[in-house]
């Protein structure tokens, strides 16, 4: 009996029949008015479910997206292709080839960078104590000043590439000095440190990593 009643009310005839009209369903009948002639009176009650399912699909997709995405650093990616003249000799090159075949550190520094001067004695210690070669990129610097500085303070680097306009450093993802990269045998960046390389970081983070490589 209920069903019949409901059907009748749902159809257009309910509007003209003298019966009390279910105004409760009236709001839901927004959809019904569209379907008045197809008489699919139950469709309106399905609508909330359908809307929810669509919403849930988007939420599911949303789970796999990271809204805080910032382009990730170059970790676990090959070193970008580069070719720099060395600081000592404009005829010599420092490029990807130099980094292949052995694990190495690449340190980005500049003479104008005060933090780098703090880092310098630590690099000297590492160069003495460890067989790992340290390469350097001299970032947006003056060539003569840099050479003089290394001569007077000591040179921990096996090779120093001179990046006067900073273009190569940008490819490396450098945004401030000092920065230090660990590059493995295949020339893949495995670690990146922003800021001063402290003895703690060297002992607890970089050395264990190098042992694994």
């Amino acid at each position: 009996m209920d069903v019949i009643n409901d059907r009748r009310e749902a159809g257009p005839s309910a509007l003209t029949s003298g019966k009390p009209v279910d105004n409760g369903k009236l709001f839901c009948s927004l959809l019904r008015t569209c379907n008045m002639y197809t008489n699919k009176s139950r469709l309106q009650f399905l609508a909330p479910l359908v809307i929810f399912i669509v919403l849930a699909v988007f939420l599911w997709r949303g789970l796999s997206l990271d809204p805080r995405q910032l382009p990730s650093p170059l970790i676990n990616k090959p070193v970008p292709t580069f070719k720099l003249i060395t600081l000592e000799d404009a005829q010599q090159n420092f490029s990807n080839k130099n980094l292949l075949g052995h694990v190495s550190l690449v340190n980005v520094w500049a003479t104008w960078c005060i933090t780098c001067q703090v880092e310098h004695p630590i690099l000297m210690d590492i160069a003495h104590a460890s067989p790992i070669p340290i390469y350097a990129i001299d970032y947006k610097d003056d060539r003569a000043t840099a050479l003089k500085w290394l001569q007077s303070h000591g040179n921990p680097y096996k090779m120093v590439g001179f990046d006067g306009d900073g273009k190569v450093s940008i490819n490396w993802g450098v945004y401030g000095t000092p920065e230090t990269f660990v590059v493995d045998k295949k020339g893949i960046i495995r670690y990146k440190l922003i800021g001063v390389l402290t003895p703690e970081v060297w002992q607890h983070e970089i050395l264990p990593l190098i042992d694994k490589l």
Partner: protein
Amino acid sequence: MIPELGYFALILALGMALIQAIFPLLGIWRDKMSWIVLAKPVALGQFLFLVLSFFCLIYAFVTDDFSVAYVAQNSNTQLPLLYKVAAVWGAHEGSVLLWVTILGFWTALVAVFSKKIPLQMHARVLAVLGFISSGFLLFLITTSSPFRRLLLNTPAQGIDLNPLLQDPGLASHPPMLYMGYVGFSVAFAFAIAALLTNKVDAAWARWMRPWTIAAWCFLTLGITLGSWWAYRVLGWGGWWFWDPVENASFLPWLAGTALIHSLLVTEKRGSFKSWTLLLAICVFSLSLVGTFLVRSGVLVSVHAFANDPARGKFLLLFLAVVIGCGLLLYALRAPFIKGGSYFSLLSRETFLLANNVLLIVAMTTILLGTLYPLIIDALGLGNISVGPPYFNAVFVPLMIPLLFLMGVGPLCYWREMNLKVLLMRLLYPAIIAVFLSLLLLLMTTDKIPVMVFIGLALACWVILVTVKSMLLKGWPLSFNHIGMALAHIGIAVCVIGITMTSYYKLERDVRMQPGDITTVGAYDFKFMGLTNLQGPNYTGLIADFQVTHKDQFVTLLHAQKRLYTAQQIPDTRAAIDAGIFRDLYVALGDPLNNNAWAVRIYYKPFVRWIWWGGLLMVLGGICALKNSISKRYIN
């Protein structure tokens, strides 16, 4: 030992929740009385174990048990005791435990207050609650146990609670919000039980109404406290940011407000039945979606909790099961619900219907704005954000007709109203409202911004009409009517606050050295100097500002810049001189050179009215609650 006890209690609670979910329904199906009556004791037992577990976590915090990972991450020996307890719900795991415990609390209340409800209905309601509870307990135990121990070494010191959360506003607002969120689960359970039995009538609405109003009160209080907290701590003087997490609490509030009104019609007139059912399902669904949005990290927000896809997936699956089943049941059963009674185009029913339409449309537009970045991202169309301008542009125009109708509705009769009588009733309030607001504006300023006029006039209108409705009703008023009047006046007070602060606030960022004077509005702020500050778990500086108004001393403000020692996180505590008609707000920014500081000075007229309005609404809710409880559950 104690943390293990807590964990064990959770597992026992899960077992009881499963029994509570399954046995009553089986009992009804197989007609076994002993299984049906099992629901009540099991619900109480589940609550007991949840409380035990909750106290175990509090104990771990109070005793600085840093072998528990969650405690180590969110507490510190130097943290004051109050915040050690508040830190229990300061991060993900603890908030979920709070969520479940509160669900247990509501379930226990439903179990106890059941005298007049038919046994089968009662058992079904408890079963639905048990099902929700088991889902969340499973989530808690498998993905986010707060009792996990750090297996290696116990750190000597914890990381500390996020300094932003070290404020009395925070200590109280999440529990209130959760009481609201979770409280709507009772309304949901009643709706599902009604759909299962195919019995939707006035009695059903009468049982459900107090639960809905109680949950609504807590949610209102939670939102109000949250806004107050944001104003003091988070927001640099803002009180609402349309942040996804704020929206997550506002969406169920809007739908819940609609539900209360629609429930009234179902109770008094037997109409709007299927719509009320749908709303009840929607409100709790929105609460769940809100919880999901906050917990899964799918949206960027200032509150963003740690992003863990595994948790998100679990929550979403559970959400899909609960909401999906609810809506499917609705789709199957709602077509057979019998109709209500006739009402005319000009009747209280119509105005309540209009109220529902406006609230739900407002809710939908906010939901759209909140999820739009997600949808665009999911479709691969880019990374966008929807800012406050969108929400303001959409929400404000919808509230204007709502406020207008809020005035008309209470002066209307049920079923049918004579247009002439109605207009006569409305005439004087309308005229007085317009003139009063014009007068108020002309007294204070020479030009009248349209929006301010509209806001003030509508607020006056709502207040006047509400007072008139009380006069027409005559003494003694029912608690129901007083509740309605208080809640509506609360809205009006809130509207006045929002309008005045939005249009007359003055905000200045300045560079100040000790001795400098900055004038904001009619107030002069003199930077007196700095003194050192030593708190229990922070150090910092206090900057003193002397405020004068026409050379009369007003107050001395002490703005703080704190540095929480454990995490080395700086935190700004603004100095606020609160007043009925205005707040003066000074916040210290960064130190600049030459002893100068960046200073933020605000003049915020009527800002307190926003929260007073919220409190009035809560008070109104309590009045209505008193009425409906004494009617349905005690006598």
